[in-house]
């Protein structure tokens, strides 16, 4: 069935280091992927997205990599800061891009040590 999973429930990094958060997905027909950041008591905040016709996309301090061969998605955060501490979710749209719903993974908690 459809599922999106994250490889590690918690990731602890030192301030200033780079962080890599991984995600595996099972639906090879998925063609749109998003990363969200969620702080306690808040709704998910959009970070970056990528379509399946791309394998890399960069934003401000963040990079998303998509490997369709092994159905793997990763989020790289450069020079991690204390404000980056949050739960990070990957999500995909299953099947056709005309479907609005997102399938979310369970989340990875990023802890940034000062």
């Amino acid at each position: 069935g459809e599922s999106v999973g994250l490889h590690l429930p918690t990731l602890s990094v030192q301030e200033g280091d780079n962080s890599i958060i991984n995600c595996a997905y099972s639906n090879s027909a998925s063609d749109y992927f998003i990363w969200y950041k969620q702080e306690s008591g808040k709704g998910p905040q959009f970070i970056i997205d990528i379509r399946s016709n791309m394998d890399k996309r960069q934003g401000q301090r963040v990079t998303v990599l998509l490997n369709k061969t092994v159905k793997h998605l990763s989020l790289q955060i450069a020079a991690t800061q204390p404000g980056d501490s949050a739960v990070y979710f990957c999500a995909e749209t299953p099947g056709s891009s005309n479907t609005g719903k997102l399938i979310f993974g369970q989340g990875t908690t990023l802890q940034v040590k000062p």
Partner: protein
Amino acid sequence: GAGVSQSPSNKVTEKGKDVELRCDPISGHTALYWYRQSLGQGLEFLIYFQGNSAPDKSGLPSDRFSAERTGGSVSTLTIQRTQQEDSAVYLCASSLGSGAAAQHFGDGTRLSIL
């Protein structure tokens, strides 16, 4: 404000009562989504509205759950005869279109059923 607005932010009610949760999407966004997030979990899709099309209700867990969107803007999620397992954070999101379009979330309604 310019973001998605949800009310109330918190709702405590007794088992068996009906509740209504409200969502004001971002102005101009044609697509609106409801998700549910249980403690420490990822988001679970409930329902999706796109323009004047019939909504995608495939995620509603039972017939006690319903939602409507009036005038293509504000949406209300109604839960009838609430049960304790309905306790969760209910999140609303909107986007400019469906499919491969970033969904922007409100901060949710935290629903507690006693």
